[in-house]
């Protein structure tokens, strides 16, 4: 069986691993914090989404490079 496709897809898949783990860690910490101290949610939520944005940036950059270096 012949498999055809673009190696960039594999590159993007690799870059998404780090982002996925990172986003998981960010939200695990966020949920932990809110579970222990529910009144801190308002403070933690922007921080959690900032962390999400930073972490996900890596995966998104991977996607960009997968398309750019064709």
């Amino acid at each position, binding site marked *: 069986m012949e498999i055809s496709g673009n190696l960039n897809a594999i590159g993007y898949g690799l870059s998404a691993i780090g982002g996925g783990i990172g986003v998981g860690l960010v939200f695990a910490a966020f949920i932990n914090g809110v579970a222990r101290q529910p009144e801190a949610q*308002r403070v933690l*939520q*922007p921080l959690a*989404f*900032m962390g*999400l*944005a*930073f972490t*996900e*940036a890596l995966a*998104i*950059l991977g*996607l*960009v490079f997968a398309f750019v270096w064709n």
Partner: protein
Amino acid sequence: MIPLALPAATNESEGFIAPTIDDLHLPEILPWGAHYGEGFGKQMLLVLLSVALISWFLVAASRRRQMVPGKFQFLGEYSYNFVRNSVGKDLIGEKDFRPFVPVLVSLFFFILVNNLFGSIPFLQLPTTSHVGTAYALAGFVYIMWIVLGIRTHGIGYFKVAVVPSGVPKAFIVPVVIIEIVSTFLVRPLTHSLRLFATMLAGHMIIALAASGSAFLLTQTSGAMPVLGVLTMAGGVGMYLFEIFIQVLQAYVFVLLTAVYIQGSISEAH
């Protein structure tokens, strides 16, 4: 399921051809049948349709103000208050959030409706899966928070934004470089591409499941149609999941907009 977007899966000699990104780039409407990018297309029509729909809905929901709202008014008020309170008030702060409520509400409804177009039969094109729309929205937000920052801090805003306090002198140069890249380059890029990529990927997955099911059910024999039923079921599941993702991405986009605005207008960094 997606009649226009499917490639010629019927060509038996070539076997199955998976849908590509360009199946989202349909021929233009004006002039009819022109190549994509040379005229007025379905995506632009949907953007204008969404503007008309949202305007009609919001104006109608807000015009007849009653103390005890009906279902229609309740839906409008509920989503409006959701954006106003749990995004604007909570993230920007009770003191300063009022001027930004229109921007947040417009962005939320615009993205929500444009995303949901991907799940409405016959429309079936999330307009935000075309990168131009995502660039335009994120660019608007980008310009807005830079202008807000300059208005709050003067030209020293750039120093406030890129030089974090409490960093040892030895590390200041790499930290500033990282901050410049992450704040002024990566931030708008990820802001737009997060929306674009999730919409594109979700739509592609559904298109793949649909065309795969169609190929397996109609072009194969033996046990293969059973697989077609499975891919069809998976496609339906992905369709429902995609609706959730579409709503979630609208929320995340507006949430990050509020976070960026808050970072620009707050005193300390």
